[in-house]
């Protein structure tokens, strides 16, 4: 296709057209170079995972990357049968799932309001919310700990769920609003004309169309909370309530013998939801984000 375009330009203008790299030939040196670079980068991106994949199925895993002499699924069964794999997983699901449920409800409402209503201070509010994205847990962890203690949130499921939800909220809110913006008002107005009141129109008409956005926002929130490390590290002391991220850390800082079988298997379990999400949501994310690189 590009070949034709260039050829036509050449003919049409009749002037000298400097040959842009590889345009007229399928595999020019430039392109081959680019493919090589891409492959090298892909290798760079993937290689660290090689250890993870090999060690998780190795009955005798160590810190070095090695091909297992004995392939086994034993690490995984051990993880759930003898170690706390099940418990860790359930905890992570409760924290991330709980936070997501709360966020979906909360940000859908707020996103809709911000998208559809204009009121004095709306812009300032939006910019303010955007600004809160610059507040990482790292900076506020000390007062957050004290606040959580005073509220009785320490070491509780509901406390941590709420805090996780709050951390993901600005981003989720921004995305939700963005998606609501993409639903044309005309559709809503058509529903009003048909006799629906504002709320009914909102729920029956707008929401389904913004559905993918809600889904994307929910997934982003879920993954953000699923991956969170510092908050559970500080706020949870009960070993029964720690999520996978902390479970990994505890296993890692073992003084004497690090159990790599356990670590690798746990890491794989931990990674799966995140990877699955990104693979599926990538398209959706890109579509909405590429336009303005908004809310990356």
């Amino acid at each position, binding site marked *: 296709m590009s070949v034709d375009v260039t050829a036509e330009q050449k003919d049409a203008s009749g002037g000298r*057209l400097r040959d842009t790299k*590889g345009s007229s030939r399928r595999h020019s040196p430039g392109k081959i170079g*680019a493919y090589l670079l891409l492959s090298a980068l892909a290798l760079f991106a993937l290689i660290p995972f090689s250890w993870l994949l090999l060690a998780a199925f190795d009955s005798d895993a160590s810190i070095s990357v090695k091909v297992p002499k004995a392939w086994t699924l034993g690490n995984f069964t051990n993880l759930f049968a003898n170690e706390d794999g099940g418990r860790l997983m359930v905890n992570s699901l409760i924290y991330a799932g709980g936070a997501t449920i709360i966020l979906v409800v909360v940000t859908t409402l707020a996103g809709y309001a911000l998208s559809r*209503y204009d009121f004095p201070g709306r812009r300032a509010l939006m910019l303010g919310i955007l600004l*809160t994205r610059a507040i990482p847990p790292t900076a*506020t*962890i000390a007062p957050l700990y004290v606040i959580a203690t005073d509220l009785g949130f320490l070491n509780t499921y509901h406390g941590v769920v709420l805090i996780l939800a709050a951390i993901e909220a600005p981003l989720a809110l921004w995305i939700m609003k963005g998606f609501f913006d993409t639903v044309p008002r005309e559709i809503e107005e058509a529903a009003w004309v048909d006799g629906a009141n504002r709320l009914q129109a909102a729920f029956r008409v707008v929401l389904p169309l913004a559905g993918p956005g809600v889904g994307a926002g929910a997934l982003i929130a879920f993954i953000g909370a699923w991956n969170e490390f510092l908050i559970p590290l500080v706020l949870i002391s009960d070993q029964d309530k720690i999520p996978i991220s902390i479970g990994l850390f505890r296993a890692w800082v073992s003084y004497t013998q690090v159990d790599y079988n356990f670590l690798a298997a746990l890491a794989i379990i931990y990674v799966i939801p995140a990877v699955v999400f990104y693979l599926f949501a990538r398209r959706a994310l890109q579509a909405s984000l590429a336009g*303005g690189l908004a809310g990356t």
Partner: protein
Amino acid sequence: MRRVDGWRDTLTVMAFLAPALILIGLFLVWPALWALYQSFTNKALTGLTAMNPSFVGIDNYTRLLADGDFFASLLRTVAFVFFSAIVGQTLFAFLIAYLMANRPGWKLRAVPVFAVIFVLPLAVPETVAALTWASMVNGTESGFINRIIGVLGAGPIQWLQDYAMETVTIVNIWRGLSFAMVLFIAALEGLPRDVLEAAMVDGASAWQQLRWVTIPILRPQILTFLMLTTITTFGIFGLVYFLTRGGPGNATEIVGIYIYKQAFQFFEIGYGSAAGVLLLAILLGLGTYYVRLMRDQV
């Protein structure tokens, strides 16, 4: 967009906004303010001041500003941000994306396939990213990187002992580079073709196209991304803490880890809050600039 009109509308808006605003206000904004308050006390988790913290004015700040460790930590973090976020993730990512993106006169195959692979480093949680790299940079001769350089005849290097900060920077570049590339490719492919084609017709070279057409059009997006990754990188904790815990010594003690140590290893909550406030000041400064960039998006 409809102007708020009458008490029913006002009530609706307030009801809809309230939960989100309460959540953000209570757990993001309030702690930031509380940090400020707490930084003026000597609250600690153990010892005598645990029971009776008292107001110490700006003592924590004078101590912080005189503390060589804090400045070293700050400097380290700035270097970390510069090399991994600015140079690594933004600059490199953009250049590479430019090489790969679809544009008039240039099309590569299989980019979507690569895109899937490139998303992985960012998709995995920080802890797992750190874990996988722990294996790579293992200091014995069976560490992956050491094996490679061993083939070239160089001795095993203790990456996390001798080159700790460099290693950590590379890990962060690895983490963000690929995804940034994917984003930039999407942005590049979203450019209006006719403008680019017009440039080509005018006889512009690839470099000239880049400099005078592509970059100016994409400037807002590039800046936005740059700001965002700078801000997030400043706040990194888990990735580095998992790998090195700030060590050896203080070699990789970036600001996030410095704050954590003050608050939860030395249990000096007041002092840790002060450091947090300073970090917030930097971040909010950057954040304000970011917000200004995004103005027209609102």
